[in-house]
Structure formats: C-alpha cells, structure tokens
C-alpha cells in the first residue's frame, strides 16, 4: 500500500536557553497509509506536537533535527531546501492547530486567508474557496468576516478549509478540538471524518484523549517520553492493550466506570527529558517492572500488525 507519510528513527533535540541540549524525540517510527488515519496519543510533553511540527519542518528555532528520515509520498524530504519544501506544504501535507483563534491572522478576513493558500493562479479561485467554505459547514458571508467575529468552531472550520483547499493527501491535525467545547468538538471530529472520506485524505491525528483517538482513527500510536511505546489497531488498544502505559490509560477511561466508582489516575508524572530514568523511561510508574527494566531500554517488538516496547513481551533491547 502507498504510504502517505513515513517517519524513520526520527530524533529531535531541544536547546534550552541555558544548559545542554536534550533529545525530545528519541527514535520515532511511524507510517500513515493512504486513506488511513493514525492517532498519536499521549500525555502533554510526550512529543506529539514536536513530531507533527517536524513533519511540517516547522520546528521552533530552539529545536533541531538530529537524525532520521521523513518520507512524504515515498519521497525523502529531510534534505529538501526550504524553498523546495515550501511547495509541499499546503499541497501534499497540511496542518491544523490547537487554538484556531491565535493561529488565524487577526487582521485579515477568513476568506482572504483561505484564498491565499490556493496554489497557482487561474480563474475560479474565489468560487473554489467559497464552495469549500460551504462544504465545511460555513455560510458564504464568513468569507468576508474577520476571525474575531467567528466562534471557535467556525474558526477551526476556516482552518480546515484553508488546509484542504489544495486537496492535500495528508492532513496533520494537532489536537484540533482541545480548545473547543464538547459539542463543538464533536462537530469538528465528524467534519474531519467526512472530509477524509470525501477527499481520500489520510490523517495524522494528535490527541491526548485516548477515547477520541479510538473513536477517530484505525491505528493508534501511544507516545511516552519521546518514543512510541505501542502501535496497534484501535480495537486492540481498547480491548487488549499491550504496554502497561496503554493499559493504564485505557483503564482510566470513564466509559469503564460504574457510577459511584472512584476516578482512576496514573500515579507519577511524565519524566523530565533532562533527567530521564535509566532503562525503560516508564519504569518508575510501571506496576510490572522487573529488574531488566531498570537497566536496559526495551526495543521495538512486533506484535501482530503493531509494535510494543516493553520487556513483558520479550527481551529485545534497544540498540
């Protein structure tokens, strides 16, 4: 099957204003096939957004690529010049963001910002824009309105229209519903599903909400401390999670409670990248930890369609 996106052994480092630089992506592997949606789930600070930004080559100035490859439509884009890669942005891969209110430019109309994204000239650009605005559920007059006149949900719809105007094969959605209230968020998720179907879109969907991930995507990658610790189909994640972290995340889902139950949480916090625990970085929070977990880092072990990084399933050590 054609791969829309493939990331191989991606490493990204963060250079703080003071102190040494630290690796915040530590060998991320993932791929998104055609018409497939992959959800990248994990706690804040696990590296989800950095992964997304890295694919767009829009890392903040204090972050650097270290190693690895990024392939978009089987084309390695790591060594492309900024000028070359610019042609790919918005055309082959687009991105939508967490807070549409600050990611839209306040001084331009919604329409002009969508229109501006159209690649190439030619007649009918405005008509195309308005047609797409209608398609994402907005009225024609939104074209002439400024971002502050729109609600959060409408702003996100404008962002979606902006991202899809050139029919990209791949859309990266970085927590597109986090800043929205629940009902609006539901509308956006439904819209994204509809767009995937209609436009043959593949999606990398980033979220910290595991139930949203399961609901939305066919494949789920669970991220922890800059690595993917488990990759599996949505059903497997929900019904038979392999990694202890995934297991704990799933057991925290409110759907699993009876009324009156105490809400579960995962003890501890995401480790500090400057001071990662030796061995498996999840071991301080892990109920199954063994002696080897304190010493060695588990490598990627194949399990069916997916992978898992945990010594419960073998003793393959990360090189």
């Amino acid at each position: 099957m054609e791969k829309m996106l493939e990331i191989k052994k991606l490493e990204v480092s963060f250079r703080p204003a003071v102190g040494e630089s630290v690796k915040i992506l530590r060998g991320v592997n993932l791929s998104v096939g055609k018409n497939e949606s992959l959800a990248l789930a994990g706690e804040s600070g696990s590296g989800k957004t950095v992964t997304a930004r890295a694919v767009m080559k829009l890392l903040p100035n204090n972050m650097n690529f270290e190693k690895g490859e990024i392939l978009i439509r089987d084309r390695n884009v790591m060594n492309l010049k900024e000028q070359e890669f610019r042609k790919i942005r918005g055309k082959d891969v687009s991105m939508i963001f967490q807070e549409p209110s600050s990611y839209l430019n306040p001084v331009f109309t919604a329409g002009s910002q969508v229109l501006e994204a159209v690649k190439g000239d030619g007649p009918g650009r405005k008509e195309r824009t308005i047609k797409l605005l209608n398609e994402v559920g907005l009225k024609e007059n939104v074209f002439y309105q400024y971002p502050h006149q729109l609600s959060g949900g409408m702003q996100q719809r404008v962002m979606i229209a902006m991202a899809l105007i050139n029919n990209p094969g791949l859309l990266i959605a970085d927590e597109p519903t986090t800043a929205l209230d629940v009902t609006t968020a539901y509308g956006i998720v439904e819209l994204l599903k509809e767009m995937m179907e209609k436009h043959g879109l593949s999606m990398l969907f980033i979220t910290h909400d595991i139930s949203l991930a399961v609901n939305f995507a066919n494949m789920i990658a669970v991220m922890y401390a800059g690595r993917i610790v488990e990759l599996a189909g949505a059903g497997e994640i929900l019904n038979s999670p392999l990694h202890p972290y995934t297991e704990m995340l799933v057991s925290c889902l409110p759907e699993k409670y009876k009324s009156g139950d105490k809400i579960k949480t995962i003890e501890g916090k995401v480790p500090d990248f400057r001071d990662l625990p030796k061995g498996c970085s999840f071991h301080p929070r892990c109920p199954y930890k063994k002696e080897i977990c304190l010493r060695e880092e588990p490598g990627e072990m194949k399990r069916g369609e997916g992978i898992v990084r945990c010594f419960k399933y073998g003793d393959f050590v990360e090189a």
Partner: protein
Amino acid sequence: MQFIPLLFGMTFISFVIIQLAPGDYFTQLQMNPEISPQTIESMRRNFGLDKPVIAQYFYWLGNLARFNLGESFSYHVPVSFLIGQKLKNTLALSVFSIFFTWLIAIPLGVYSAIKEGRWQEKMMSFFAYIGISIPSFLIAMLLVFFAARTMVLPVGGTTSVFYINATGWEKFIDYLKHLLLPGIALTLAEIGWLYRLMKNNFLEALGSPYIVTAHAKGLSDGRIYFRHALRNAVNPMITIFGYTLSSVLSGAALVEIITNWPGMGRLILDAVLSRDLYLVMASLLIGGVLLILGNLVADILIAAADPRVRLR
C-alpha cells in the same frame, strides 16, 4: 467629544498651578528702584492680576472664546503674534525630523528583526543603543561643533546674510540648509528608540502562531514578512505616531535652544522662567490641543488598520 471638558480641566489646573507659586511677573520689577510701587500696582490691575485666581481664569477663558490669547507681559505684544512668528520654524523642524525618523527607523527595524541574531542586526542595535544613550542636546552640541569646524552647514538662525536679495527658490533652499543641522540632530536623537520599538513589534509578530499557519500554507518568506507580520507589527506603532504628533511643538525645545533655531522652545522656556502667564498658558493650550488631536488621529488610523478595533 470628551476632549472639550478635558481641555477645560487641563487649562484650569495649569492656570491654578502657575498662580499658586508665590509672586508673579511684576515681582521682579519691584526690585528695580526706578519703577515706583504705584506703577507696578497699576500694571497688575491692567492685567487683572489683582483679582482672585478663579476670576483671572475665567477672564482668560472669556478672552479665549473671542480668540484672544492675551498679551505677553514681557514683550507687550499679543501672545498670538509672538507664537505665530515662531510656530512656523518649530513646525518645519518637527515635521522634518518626524518624517525622516519614521522613514529611516521603520524599514531598519523591520530589516533587523528579520536578521535577528545576525551581524546586521547586532551592528544596528549597537548604534541604536548609542543613539538612545546620548541625550539630544549632546548630539546637537556635537553637530554644532562639527558644523562650525567644517563649515559645511550654517549654524544658528534660519537665514543667511544674502537672504534679503534672494529669489523665492533661493530663499527656500537657504532655509532648508539652516534647517538641516537642528533637523539632523533631532532625527538622530529620536531614531534609536523608534527603531527598537519597531524591531520588537515585528519580532513579536513573527513569533505569533498565525505566522506558523502562514508557513504551513507554504507561503513565501516575503509574503509572510510583508503581509502577515508587518500588518500586525504596525498597529502598535500607530498609537506612538499619535503621541509623536502631540510633541511637535515641545519635543524640539532642547535642540532648538542649543542650535539657536528660533522656534517655540526658547520662547516657552523664557516665558516660564519670567512667569509670563498668558504666553505660558497659550503654549500649554496648544500642547493640549495637539495631544488630543494626535490621539484622535491615532484612533482613526487604528480603526482603519485593525478590524478588531473598527467593529467595536
């Protein structure tokens, strides 16, 4: 429309403060043994200075309503005549320096924000820092010294000796030549902080999330800088521009005095020192009106530039 009560309040408070200080213009004259106390008393009465402060204020206000700014104590001519003579020169100087300050500082600020961290930016910021650190009067003094030594620019006054025989065009050129020295001094004094302000605004705009969106759309750098960032970076500058307008008359005072440019600066300074009440009041009034006008202009411009303000 709130500016009319504002003007009343402003003039009233300044009037009272000036009159609160002990003595008046004629106090100094009492030192002079050749002027009899009776003469001074009658002069006070002529100018209405024997009445209570409130009455004096309303007397001044009444005159103002008839476009009469009163008479200067020390020059014995109408204040409007005195100011009219000097206003032109100060306006010429201020407009010259504001025009060149903005013309130079804005593009340099943008350029150096784009080059942030590179040597171009470091060099410009270094010079800007020097410019901000040196007070305007010192810059003016250095320039006067330089001009006097090299004779490239005329020093002092607005005209040369041959002015009387010159044609209209030559007169204009001569005036410009004289304007150059105070004009450059004032421009150099102002350019540093305006550059820094513009640079910081532009940097802030460049760090905004909507710039990430613009990159994600695959826009070119030029479009991102000059459409997305510039439009947002310029908005706060408009307010600054309004304030600049309000300082056209007073901002140049120090430079005027040092370069001997016959503008309002010297006139107002002397008026305050000698407590020439109506002259001081007139200059305060003009300053107040300019401040209000400047803000009004800024409000209109901001409404034109920023849709969030326009629709409120």
